[in-house]
């Protein structure tokens, strides 16, 4: 279970406050969606959960199964089960995708006190996962994300998620830059991982993705807070009426 309570966050130099007392709980097995206008702080929330160092936590707490994430290094959070599919996945020239995947999987196993994967097992898992997501083998030999299209990068994020088997996966606008076919493939990849002990936080600007990844709960974020919570029908309402109501609520 992920519990976020009264989270206040500013950018590191204190010049700008982004999250303003955010509360959010996601239960095991739950798929929660966050929707909100650009600039409302969705990516910031995802970065703060994952442990990006550019932010200052002014108040509040984030607990994963009762453990205080805010006290943990980003790699320890990953080993504890946090996964963030980046809105803009980074290119790492010179680091072959395979090398990276193996390093990541082994680092997490080690941190959890499990043994490292045997190479043939690793190869098999990657090959299978890549096939499901329509990722060609030669992409795995290239530098991580180097020269990949926007859609290929997003698929690579989902492959990483499948291999790392997180307990809470945060997808930050995974739908942006995807055409409808890629959107379906990626959504299938996500749906295949849904399980009773894994939860998802799906961040999106548009309702479209939620036709494919059907959420249990929908939260509206505005100005750094959750301003409304509902079921999947809330997404449809937002699609019809836009965010104007919620934005003005905050301004009032």
């Amino acid at each position, binding site marked *: 279970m992920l519990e976020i309570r009264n989270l206040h966050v500013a950018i590191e130099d204190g010049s700008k406050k982004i999250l303003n007392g955010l509360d959010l709980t996601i239960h095991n097995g739950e798929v929660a969606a966050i929707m909100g206008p650009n600039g409302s702080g969705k990516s910031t929330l995802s970065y703060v959960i*994952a*442990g990006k160092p550019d932010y200052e936590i002014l108040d509040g707490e984030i607990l994963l199964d009762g453990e205080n994430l805010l006290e943990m290094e980003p790699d320890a*959070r990953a080993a504890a089960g946090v996964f*963030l599919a*980046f809105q803009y996945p*980074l290119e790492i020239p010179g680091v072959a995708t395979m090398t*990276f995947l193996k*390093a*990541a999987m082994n680092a997490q196993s080690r941190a959890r006190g499990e043994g490292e994967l045997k190479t043939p097992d690793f190869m098999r898992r990657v090959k299978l996962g890549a096939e499901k997501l329509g990722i060609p083998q030669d992409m795995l030999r290239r530098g991580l994300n180097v020269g990949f299209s926007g859609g290929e990068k997003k698929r690579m994020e989902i492959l990483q998620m499948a291999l*790392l088997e997180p307990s809470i996966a945060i997808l930050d606008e995974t739908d942006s830059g995807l055409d409808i076919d890629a959107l379906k493939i990626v959504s299938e990849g996500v749906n295949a991982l849904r399980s009773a002990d894994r939860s998802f936080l799906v961040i999106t600007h548009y309702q479209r993705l939620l036709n494919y990844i059907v959420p249990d709960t929908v939260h509206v974020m505005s100005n750094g807070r959750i301003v409304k919570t509902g079921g999947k029908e809330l997404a449809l309402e937002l699609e019809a009426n836009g965010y104007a109501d919620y934005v003005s609520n905050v301004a009032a």
Partner: protein
Amino acid sequence: MASVTPLKTSAELALMAQGAGLPIARQSAFGRFTEAGLPHRRIEAYHYSDLRSLMKDAPQLAQASGSAPSDTVFGDLDAMVVTIVDGHLVGEVNASLAGVTIATQGDAPDDGLAKDSVFPESGDPVIALNAAFVDQTLKIGITKGAALEKPIHLRFVTTAAVSAYTRAIVNVADGAKVTLIETHEGIAGALSNSVVEFSVGDDVQLDHVRINLVDKAATLLTTLGGRMGARSTVTSGNFVTGSALSRHQVFLRFEGEGSTATISGASLLNGRQHVDTTLVVDHAVPECVSREHFAHVLDGEATGVFQGKIIVRPHAQKTDGKMMSRAVLLMDGATMNNKPELEIFADDVQCGHGATVGALDDDLLFYLRARGLPKPEAEALMLQAFVGEALEMIPHEGVRETLEGLTESWLKARG
């Protein structure tokens, strides 16, 4: 401003005392050194590497030699090994490889003032000292058309805190194919001054590698002088983790059309190491290609220096020259000095240079850490890739793998 005659440093005094015993034939080279003494920061070519202040001492000249450790850095690489210990060739000189001739010569070598030398016309103090003090010149010939079935490995070793001067002259005849590796191993307090000269004919493939693994309290001064004929390909890859102070000079001249030279290097430095690479690539004829790529990883208070000059002579049209220097600073106390220069006298050329100096990218580091890699491991992965860019320019796979392994060990030792 009044002109002051600086006091001699203790290194200069030691060198003067050593030079006093030199035979007549060596006096002119030595004289060229004594005129100006050790170069200092007001000498342009040594601006970033003030040898007068960096060289604390000139240890006594090596006499007889000790014996080299039996293991080489390459483990089981099959090579024709020539071992030079404390400035002297060890054992019989025998060319155990088809297509190779090898001999030694004892008279005074050229100190760079010969009319057609590739060395600086104005002389260079490090080369002048080498010409004055070297005992044996190793002459290696690769016969016409020979494709050597294994590399030649020149293994330079010091076993005592002495000054060791070495010179090797390598003649690669037309159509030959050879990999030539120099490794430098040495102990604390030693000063090594090594000059390697190439004379490369037409249609040659020469892959040269220089590896500096001397003790971190040793000084290594190395110079590579090369001339290339037509349609030849020369690579020179460098790898440095050793020495308190090192300077590597490269003077390369294209003398035949249609040739390509690739000069690369990776230096991994920490503590207070000071490592200088200074190169001059002279496009004296048209239609040649040169690539220079140097990578520095600087930890602690280490200093890296890269000075690279591409000269394109007036009629050297269609020259294609690109030079890149990249440095990663891991600590605030580390320093990188870059001085890239293009001297272009022809109009139809493609030349460029670039230099980057900076810390590792924080966003990339976060991405790796968010996937579970602890900080040191994430940094090591990025640095391995950074160094890999330079290492991949070394064609010999076995050598490249050895250097990748040395890089990995260096990164592991960082913790």
